[in-house]
Structure formats: C-alpha cells, structure tokens
C-alpha cells in the first residue's frame, strides 16, 4: 500500500513540473474546465432548458460527444492488439500510452453522461444493490457496465505495467496477459453496446439497422488512431520519448482501412435509404438535403463528407501517408469529419422527424458548447497528466528509489 502511495506521489510530483508551454496548455485547459463546472451548475439549478434540447430532440451535443468518445476509447485497441497479439515491437513500447488515452476518453464519456442526464444527482439509482440496475433488459445498463469495466481494465493494465517499470520488476504475465486479451475484446464490445443503445429502437428508423455497430467500430478505429498519431507527434516533439516510425505507420494503415470501410458503409446507407425514399429515410434526408425547408445540418454533412474523402485519399497515397508533415493534416481532417458525421450528423437527425412526424431543429446553446469544450478540456487535462507521467516512467525519469532503471527490465 505504501508503495502505491509513493508511486502516486512520485508520479504527481513529476507531472506537476514542466516548462512554460506545459503550463500554458494546462492553464488553458483548466480555464475551459471551469466553464464546464459552471455549465454543470446551471444545468442542475435551471435544468436542461439552458441547452437547446427539447422533448422532440432530446439528445444533442452531449450525447453526440459521448458516442464519439466511446469510439475514441475503443480506438486504443488499435495499439494494444498489434502489440500483444502480433508482437509488434514498436507498438509494444507505447501500449501503455494507448491505455492512458482509453482511460481519459472513458472519463470524458462519463463526464458527458453527467452532462446529459436530467438528474445526475440520482445516478446512484443505477448502482446495483442500493439501486436498480436493469440487466439484461436495458442497453444503457449494459453500456454502463461495459464502460466501467473498460475503465477498470485499462486502469489496472496500464498502471500495473507502469508500476512494474517504475519499480524495476517484471510483469507477471499470468495475470497480465489474460487482462490484456480481455481488454482487447472489451474494447470492441464497449462500442458495440453503444451502437446497440441506439440501433435497437425501431422507433428511430434512421438508426434501426444492423449496420450501426460495424459503422461505429469502423469510424472508431479511424478516429481513435488519428488522435493517437497526433498525440505521438506531440510526444516526439516535446518529450524525451521517441516513438518509432513503424508504430505511427501501422496506425496510419489502420486508419486508412477503417476510414475506407466507414466511407463504404456511408455510401451503402445512402443508396439503401434513398433508393426507395420511404418515410424511414426522412432523417437521413434531413441531414443531407434538409426537410420541409429546414436545412441547418446540411452544410455540416457535406463538409464532413469532404473532410473524410480528402483524408481518405491522403491516407491512401503512401507518399502522403508517410510524410509526417502531411500526415497530421490528414489526421485532423479525418478526426473532424468523423466527429461531425458520428456525433451531430448521426444523433440529431435520428430525432428528425419525431416518430409521429413532427419536424423540428436543434441548435446547441452557448452553455452546451461551453460544457462540451470544458469536458473535452478535462479529458485532455487528464490525458496530459497521465501521458506525461507514463512517459516519465517509460524513459526512466520516474523510478522507485533504489530500483534498476526502467530500461533494464522487460
């Protein structure tokens, strides 16, 4: 126990120290985070009326971000899988960084859940034994189980590994490897359950098709690695850690395939829905062309499509993909395109029209934007802290007093 406290203390001590760039970044994130706290306060006093949500469109920016971030969290598996199943050496070195990303992403998801709920003070009602946890009926209950489990898994795997590095001991593979394999499968399942959350409702024809989970996974494995690539670039330029080209190249390859698959699935959906153009296609039609003269999401859809297509072409061309000056641009385009398409472009049109045909529009309010930015900021804050500490341990800057340097073991 004392060792763990020392570990945490050393970790924290290391993380707190940094240069001007670091403090500016943390300060900026902290400021945004304050905004989220204020927005949360407003929502818990005045209610969700401070957002743009209505009874007609009752899942907005928060749910969109939530869904997207579950994907990003699942995307960490694109590091873990090659590292441990294919023994990709370069990936193996950075696996724990992926796990740190997963932890931060899941925490962001939970923050957005809190923002989304009508009564977050009553979330204890979901805790088994003191509340009621509706398994196996409720998909949301499964989702909570999956997300909590994933958080715990990544926490254990990531920090156990870091602890072994910190203390210079060997990883006990008989405990560690099964957990890793479970976390690989679990990563897929968190995002599948999130897809099931919305795809199992026949009242929402835009979502009610079996393609939803595969589309989620494909876009997750495109967006997640994009973020990871960007993070790796930042790490290369700002820390002592050098991440090998082969790791980044493998991630870029994964993005290429998954982005291609995602675009293919989008095309498939468009063809199937718009060929017969039934009333079930009204949601997609609203997104693409507007409905009844209401067109606020149309420019978003088309720009997301352009972003994803351009990004896909960029990723497809090997010379562009391996050019580390152009790769970040492609990553940003892909990330943004997928965020739009999977977030606002999937969630909001699902409610337009309502199941009985009323067409309305949704405009996020400033409070919603402030809360969302703030939640992202808190997530990035946690990510920065975790990554910094993890990198510190990996390069040997943090080690238990009296133990061998990290590089010596495993």
């Amino acid at each position, binding site marked *: 126990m004392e060792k763990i406290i020392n570990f945490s203390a050393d970790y924290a001590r290391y993380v707190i120290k940094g240069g001007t760039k670091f403090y500016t970044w943390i300060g900026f994130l902290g400021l945004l985070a304050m905004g989220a706290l204020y927005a949360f306060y407003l929502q818990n006093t*005045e*209610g*969700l*009326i401070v957002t743009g*949500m*209505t*009874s*007609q469109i*009752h*899942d907005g920016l928060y749910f969109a971000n939530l869904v997207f971030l579950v994907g990003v969290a699942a995307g960490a598996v694109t590091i873990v899988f090659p590292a441990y199943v294919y023994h990709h050496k370069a990936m193996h070195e950075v696996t724990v960084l992926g796990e740190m990303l997963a932890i931060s992403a899941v925490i962001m998801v939970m923050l957005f859940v809190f923002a*989304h*709920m*009508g*009564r*977050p*003070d*009553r*979330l*204890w*009602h*979901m*805790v088994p034994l003191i*509340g*009621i*946890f*509706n398994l196996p*009926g*409720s*998909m*949301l*209950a499964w989702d*909570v189980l999956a997300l909590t489990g994933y958080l715990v898994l990544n926490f254990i795997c990531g920090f156990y590994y870091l602890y072994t590095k910190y203390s210079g001991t060997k990883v006990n593979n008989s405990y560690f490897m099964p957990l890793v394999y479970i976390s690989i499968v679990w990563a897929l399942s968190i995002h599948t359950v999130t897809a099931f*959350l*919305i795809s199992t*409702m*026949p*009242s*929402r024809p835009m979502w009610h098709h079996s393609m939803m989970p595969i589309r989620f996974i494909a876009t997750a494995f495109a967006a997640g690695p994009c973020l990871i690539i960007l993070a790796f670039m930042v790490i290369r330029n700002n820390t002592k850690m050098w991440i090998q080209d082969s790791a980044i190249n493998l991630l870029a390859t994964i993005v290429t395939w998954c982005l291609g698959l995602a675009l293919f699935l989008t095309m498939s959906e468009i063809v199937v829905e718009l060929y017969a153009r039934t*009333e079930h296609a009204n949601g997609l039609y609203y997104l693409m062309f507007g409905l*009844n003269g209401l067109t606020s999401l149309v420019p978003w859809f088309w720009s997301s499509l352009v972003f994803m297509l351009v990004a896909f072409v960029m990723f497809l061309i090997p010379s562009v993909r391996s050019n580390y000056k152009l790769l970040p641009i492609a990553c940003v385009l892909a990330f943004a395109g997928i965020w739009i398409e999977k977030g606002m472009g999937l969630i909001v049109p*699902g*409610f337009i029209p*309502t*199941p*009985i*045909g*009323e067409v309305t529009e949704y405009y996020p309010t400033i409070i919603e934007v402030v809360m969302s930015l703030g939640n992202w900021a808190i997530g990035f804050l946690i990510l920065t802290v975790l990554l910094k500490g993890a990198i510190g341990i990996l390069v040997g800057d943090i080690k238990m007093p009296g133990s061998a340097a990290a590089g010596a073991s495993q």
Partner: protein
Amino acid sequence: MLSASSLMGAAALMTQTDEPKATTEWAEHFQKNYRLMTDEEKAESRDRLERRYSAQYGKQVTVDTTPALPGVLMGYALNIRKCIGCRRCVKACVAENNQSRGEEPGQRIEWIQVLKMERGEFSPDKMEHGYPEGLGIQVGGNAYAPAGQVLEGQYHYEPEAVPEKDSTYMPIACMQCEKPPCVKVCPVRTTYREADGPVVIDYNWCIGCRMCMGACPYWARRINLTTPILPKEEMNPVTHYLGNRPRMRGVVEKCHWCLQRTRQGRYPACVEVCPVGARKFGNLLDPQSEVSLILARKNVFRLKAELNTFPKFFYFYD
C-alpha cells in the same frame, strides 16, 4: 462520489432552508423505487409528499397510492371519424394533470398532440411530372403531389374554426402498450406497466436519461427541461403518486390515463371533455364496457402495430 455529493448537498440544504421542507426533501432523495417500498414506506412517502405539496401550493393536496384494481385492464378507444381537432382534450389534460406551463420554449408540456392531416387531391396538371415515357422508370405523375390522405402531419394549425374543410385529425398520446419499449430500455426500472394496464413512472426514481423517450414509437413522453411552472391557482390538489402529482426538473412524464381518477372509478379528463364524444375508456375485461363493445363491433386499428408494442389505445371509425 455521487452519494457523497448528494449527502453533502442535502446536508447543506438542511442548514439553509426551512427545516420541515428540507427534511422531506432529504428523505425523498433517498427513498427507494416505489415498487420496492413496503406499505409503511409508501405511506410515509405519501405523507411526506402531501406535506410538501400542500406547503408549496398553499392548499390541501392529497397523494393517492391506490394500487392496481383487480379484475381490470384499462383500455381506450378513439373514434377518428369524429375527432374535429378542437384540442380540448389537450387542454383538459393540462387542467387535470399539473403539467408545467410557462411562456419560455420548453416550459409548456402537453401530453396529447393532435395531428392534422390534409386531404390532398389528384390534379391533371401533375400528370406529366417526372420522367418521360419510354424510359422504363415508372416515376412521376401525381406521386410528387400530395394526394389522398397526406401522412405528413401538422401540429401547429390554428384556424378560425375546426374541423377545417378537407382535414382530418388524430390525437396521439401514450398508447399504454402491453409490451412497452420504454419499459424495456429504462436502466433503473422506474417506468413500468401496472397490473391494471397503464404504464407509469415513479418520478422520484427517474434519472432523466431519456432512453424511454427515444424508444417510444409514438412520441408519448416529455421531459421536464426545467423546474415545472405551475401556478398555485391552477394546481389540481387531487393527485396520485404515479399520476398527476407535480413533477420536478429533469424527469420524464407522460399520460397515465388519469390514475388519480381512474383508480377511483372516474373517466380520464380527456374522455370527459371531448365535445364530439370521440374518446372512450373502460375495462377491457368487462364485455359490457363501451371499449369492449367497440372492439367487438367497430373497425378498430392500432398505430404502428407492426412494432409489436400491443397498444391498449385503439383507434376506430364508424
């Protein structure tokens, strides 16, 4: 972290505000799901609520806890040939059920929505619309014009008088399904189907996740986006725990067939007010009730029956 913050919040509340009110809110915060309460806990909860509501609205408020009536399965029938779209059912429901009412968007809640559908017409000048002959793609003609009964509904119609020429009207509210999709998705089991038929919500247990609102194919449920605005003079003091007692911010509500009335044997408010007698209510297990006779005699259908929700709200025409 959750319960700790609630505890501390409630504790802080107790020191801030009026003692009895604070104590009731604290206890209310930690009460169990209604179905799991013992009779004593139910009685205690009812007393607490009666005291709180009476203090809040300045009148003697009763909170009924009558359980499901044995031998009863409530059913509803609506004659769509008769509906004239006057919306009195909507307003009667609001007069009875203590919904939030306010001027800011999102503050006014109405459980019934009346859908107006126009009859379009076939017109000769549309005949040549679409692709020309001979290409083998048979599209065009009057397909692109509203003709016959137009399915796209209007909700915000406001004519001088109803029914308007060439319009039909269809009110929609909770269908009280026998296999409710909303019940299935609730993560905390706060919404459930009572033994005598209606689907109810324990407002004190609802976490406001709105999964039920997404799952309902009839758009029957509403969310309280803010603390409900309910003037004291308009508050109906005769309430039921699962029925029309005043709700709070962040919880979902919907039609419950006026439990405070139906459990005491009276017709729901919408049934009583309909000026054309389009709405009928009764016990489906009683072959002499008007609803059973309608099912036996009239042409009856249900909305979105293919979704296998098995609504107990039947539409008929004669």
